[in-house]
């Protein structure tokens, strides 16, 4: 595969493409709470509960944005800036990856997969700092836990990216998407399947669904939630929204780049884009179903077994790289 960068850099920037790029970001902002709502609803249904309905996250956000902000006395400017940075990071990443269209749009060449990963990590780094900022015990414990887990998850993520680069000969997500659609042999090859499995484990780590996480608000088990315990009102809403968008972005990378690269708009027509949006929702609901099943049948582990799923994911990535070297 030749390097497609020069060709894509010379594309004329049309109004349509700018509109499409804005639509990608807007779609991420708008549809992220819907996916979260679907996951929560599925979990409740699987556990024979009734569930709050798939639109509950929108109502929650509406409620939070109409509340007052309470700020701890010990908090510094970091406390104010972290939610904004996190939210903006999650708005930036959808520009770099194929959300609706399978061809690059204006500013898509700002960064490759590694750049997207950097910005995703920057967002959660700021939240970790904000958790430490106010000096409360829960923020500290949440920040240290999420730091240790991301220290172990990051090398695997890099290995997955290396594996993608080795089989696609490119780090651009669009090239990977085109390659997987064009060549079913590559799609069914062991390298790709192992990368999908490794990334699936990373997906559960990054979206707070690892079997050591707790979805309920019990302080002993909290990881991601403990970092933002001090926030309230619109700032809390912003953080919630940012974490839903992070989940949406990771699902996008998983589906549109690795696992289900089909049904994307390839010409940028309005019909195609709307169809791609519906297809994205369907794909995400499928992945959410898989995540919920894994989350339900896997029993909770104690916290100090956090390294086991990550070691498994590391191993899968190593096997994928080995099989790209051979196959």
């Amino acid at each position, binding site marked *: 595969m030749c390097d497609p960068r020069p060709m894509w850099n010379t594309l004329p920037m049309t109004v349509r493409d700018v509109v499409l790029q804005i639509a990608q970001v807007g779609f991420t902002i708008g549809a992220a709470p819907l996916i979260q709502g679907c996951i929560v609803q599925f979990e409740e249904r699987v556990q024979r509960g009734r569930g709050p309905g798939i639109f509950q996250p929108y109502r929650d956000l509406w409620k939070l944005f109409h509340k007052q902000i309470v700020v701890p006395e010990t908090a510094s400017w970091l406390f104010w800036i972290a939610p904004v940075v996190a939210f903006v990071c999650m708005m930036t990443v959808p520009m770099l990856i194929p959300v609706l269209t399978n061809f690059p749009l204006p500013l898509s060449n700002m960064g490759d997969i590694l750049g997207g990963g950097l910005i995703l990590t920057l967002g959660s780094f700021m939240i970790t700092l904000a958790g430490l900022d106010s000096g409360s015990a829960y923020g500290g414990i949440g920040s240290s836990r999420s730091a240790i887990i991301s220290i172990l998850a990051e090398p695997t993520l890099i290995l997955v990216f290396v594996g993608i680069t080795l089989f696609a000969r490119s780090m651009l997500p669009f090239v990977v998407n085109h390659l997987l659609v064009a060549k079913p*042999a590559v799609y*069914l*090859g*062991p390298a790709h399947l*192992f990368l999908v499995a490794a990334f699936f484990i990373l997906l559960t780590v990054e979206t707070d669904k690892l079997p050591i996480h707790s979805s309920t608000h019990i302080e002993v088990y909290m990881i991601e939630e403990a970092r933002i315990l001090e926030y309230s009102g619109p700032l809390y809403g912003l953080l919630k929204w940012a974490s839903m968008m992070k989940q949406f972005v990771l699902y996008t990378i998983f589906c549109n780049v690795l696992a289900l690269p089909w049904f994307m708009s390839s010409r940028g027509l309005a019909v195609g884009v709307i169809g791609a949006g519906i297809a994205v929702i369907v794909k995400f609901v499928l992945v959410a179903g898989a995540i919920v099943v894994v989350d339900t049948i896997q029993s909770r582990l104690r916290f100090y077994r956090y*390294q*086991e799923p*990550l*070691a*498994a994911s*590391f*191993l*899968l990535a*190593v*096997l994928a790289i*080995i*099989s790209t*070297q*051979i*196959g």
Partner: protein
Amino acid sequence: MTAFHASPVVASIFSLIAIASLLLAFVMLGSRWMRHYLMAFAAQSWLIAILSASVGYIDRYPELYVIAILTALFRGLLLPYLLLRIVRRMNVEREIVPVLQPSSSLVIGAISVVFALAVAEHIGTSLDLSSKVVILALTVMLSMKLIGYLMLAARHEAVSQVLGLLVLENGIFLGTQILVPGMPMLLELVILFDLLIVVVCFGVLVRYLMGQVGSTSTLHLRRLVG
């Protein structure tokens, strides 16, 4: 020896089966429960049986069908059943004191796969074997042997040690199915009965351990008597 110049589709099927059985070896390495070891071992044996049947179909060795059926019956059903009986009777559900944590043994296993790849590439270049399938078979064979040795060294329940031996043997068998598919059938039968003897011997050993020491862990075998 058509495995050396197989068509791409056949090559991808072979590599998928080989890598899936390597993955099952890792399942054994990363778990703590005896029952998971046994299930993974049985699944691995079934995969190897499918592999030898497909090699027999593609390369037209009719005796490989018999070997596939024997593999599935012996390694896929009989040996796991015998081991399961030992596990049930002795009530050893899991490794009580792991010498190596599952996660670190997984990482060591991954390193050994990389080492096996390096060795296989070296063998491939020195013997002028350019075929990808051959390199893959060599890699999987060597790394399953290394994983078997690791299980023998890092586990001390007698049952998981015999499973380490069986994984080692499965690796060699998988390699021979791809590299030298026309092996005499008598040899295969001898190996299968050898395995049966290994399992029976370990059964006796486990009973002896239970009677003398009161546990099935080989950690208690410290004194050399003779």
